[in-house]
């Protein structure tokens, strides 16, 4: 078990499908899920190791929209920011986050990118801001 971050096979597939298809069958990757799992991320990951359900405020969903998406064209980078707000996911030590293309609850095999990081004990006193850069390399 180790910290790390990957673009999963699903994520790569979604990217390519959206790049080549005039009417993509996948939504854009713009929502995220969080969890408490700590298995080392691999490209074969399809779900979070231990997803937290019902954590968004006030509606209690298992995923929410990313806070922002930006592009650094000269550097071939995308910047995706995800925010877990003060009133959300409290009582959990968050160790993993996954980006998803699927906006339906309980969507199977939808994790496009997974990141495992040093746990953040979430309380009403703090918010978790995860910034993921996707770049060529």
């Amino acid at each position, binding site marked *: 078990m180790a910290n790390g*971050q*990957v*673009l999963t*096979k699903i994520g*790569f*597939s*979604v*990217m*390519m*499908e*959206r*790049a*080549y*298809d*005039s009417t*993509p069958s996948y*939504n*854009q*990757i*713009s929502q995220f899920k969080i969890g408490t799992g700590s298995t080392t991320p691999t*490209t074969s990951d399809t779900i979070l190791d231990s997803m937290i359900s019902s954590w968004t405020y*006030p*509606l209690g*969903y298992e995923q929410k*929209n*990313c*806070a*922002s*998406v*930006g*592009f650094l*064209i000269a550097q*071939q*980078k*995308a910047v*995706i920011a995800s925010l877990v707000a*003060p009133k959300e996911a409290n009582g959990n030590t968050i160790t993993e*986050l996954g980006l998803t293309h699927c*906006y*339906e*609850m309980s969507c199977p095999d939808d994790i496009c*990118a997974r*990141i495992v*990081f040093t746990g*953040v004990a979430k*309380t*009403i*006193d*703090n*918010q*978790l*801001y*995860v*910034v*993921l*850069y*996707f*770049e*060529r*390399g």
Partner: protein
Amino acid sequence: MTRRYIKVEIDDEDVSSQVLRCKIVQTYGDAIPTAELELSSQYYEEEGYTAPTNASTLEIWLDENDPPTTKVFDGYIDNMQPQQGMIRISGKDQLSLMLNDMMNHYFDTAEVEEKCYPDGRISSIFNAIVKDYAGLNTNTTYGYTTSYTTGKLVDVYANFNDGSVNVGDIVKNFTVSGEPHANVTAIDSDTQLSVNSNIFNASNRYMIYPATGQVVHDSGTTITLNKFDCHDADPFERCRKLADTLNWCFFYKADTDLVYFQEKNFTTNSNSITIGGSSNNVMQIPQWEYDRSELINILKVEGIEQQVEYSQTFEGYGSTTTFNLDYEPSTIAVYYNVDVNFSTTAPTFEDRQLGNVEGGLTEADFTVDKKTKTITFAVAPDAPTTSNNILVIYSYSIPAQTTIRDQTSIDTYGNYSKKITFTDITEVDDITARATNILEKYKEPFKSATVKRVWKASLDYSPGQLVNVTDNLNIPNVDNTFFIVKVTQNYPDSTVELEVGDKQWKTDELLSDLVERMKQGEENDVGSTQSTDTDLVSETIQFDLGLQTCDVVLKNAAGAVITSTQYTSGGVYTNRGFNVILNRAFRKTPDYNHIGSFMIGTGSTAASVDDTSMGNMFNGWVTGSPLYYSKELDSFAVHTSNETVTTVAHVPTGLGTGCSFCEYGEITSTVGSVVNRFVFPTITKGDFEQVYITTVFVRT
């Protein structure tokens, strides 16, 4: 006038007979109390006493007895200046111990072993700092019961045998309604007390103090600190911060050897001060200072903003994109379903619309403009098959506020207005009550003076007390209660000098507003319920695309293969291509079209990631009107398990007739920058021949 006697001990040696003068200054916690002595050095030498050093202890008693029995100072020599025939000594009292060592501790109400657990009482933090980090004493113990035993108080984090708890002490239970109390009947162990009434259960907040009363008063739970950082801090400064937060005072009393922490107006000294007339008890007429700088006679008070949940429904018409909200939303969720009447049917997750603020980066179904109180859909919602097919659930904030004025003060002094905010009040009635209380104190100018009172036995003035002062000589007369800011004892003079003012204790309410902001500011530094820390995780995910294979197949018109060559190099995904992939991956409405066409040419320069165009593109090789530069790809396929994307391009018979080409590139529109480029040995296509180019790019 009553004569006073003094007794001075340095390092337990009685040097009283050498004392020429003595001045003792006591404060209420804003500074360390001091004593200044002048001793006869000649006598010192003749008697053979050891000369005092900077490490010597200094104790002073002062009253009408000979020898005196009232200890008024207990501390250490801070500075010594031998002079001809005299030694000047200055000392600081026991509170100076709070300056000697730095402390490092983080008080956190989330930790059960903390003395402030779980409610963050400031008095419990103060008590812990004084006892655990300054080496001084209080007679008060705070804690939290960790388990239940009948007739016992059990706290595994306590140390009841440290001398601070005695049989007969009172134990009070804060947690149970009515705050019941009992008496300690035995100290069973470091962690267990026997009590004469079974008032405790597990997880109860308690306080222990002697029957004579606690010197560290309970500060309650109105103003609390969830976290208090004492990193490389001196305990005195930290205690002063706590006192400031509550607008309380703290001081050390030599006669009890205890540190006190209490409200500024807790004790009123019964020895009133009278200036003039037959009851005069001062040595000189004081000069009063009238300070109008903080006068208030018009007060606007705001309470905490309340969030009100609200919902509205709308109907789409296929053309209207903007809908008006009744209030400025703080939080918002929008649901839309052309077939659902949300006034009768609950929304589902699938109905929820992706939202963003005006000008935000994220693609969204709708945007919110708080200023105009509107939501605007990117695409006009369709006319419903039923009514109310758009549901907006949002919250808006309303502040509680009121303004009160004192007309008498306005008529006398003119308008003095001020606006303050209390973040602990939500009800207008509560605000009015507190505002009235504040105005009562601030509607007149503050007064202060130094009075020199004739000393008599049992005066016992202490900083932090209140005292009534009646001045019948000065005009206007004064007859008010004042806060004792400083007490100065002069020996051999038989007077006590009091610095008094009404600002220091009258300003409790207003200061608590300022202090509340300070407290919030402080908690911003350490993380608390009233502020937000941001934990930032920042990572980079890298990936790339490389050419796996490219098959160039020449066929005849019937489809028979004439030549077929597979290449594994010579192709790259360009930087533009990478931007296209990223942009289309994350944007709902991408800035680029999909990669759907290809071009061919005769450019032979090696393919590079920096390529933006073909080396030598064929113009108009695709017939039609007009002529096209590119042709649509035949197909593409993404293989998840292999992490590849395969495209098939077809140059059919009749197109590119008789050409030779050695360059291939894919684009996002009919013409433009290439997303990839592949250069290969020239292939010549006859009139009735066709070419298939199948490229496979793989994730690397």
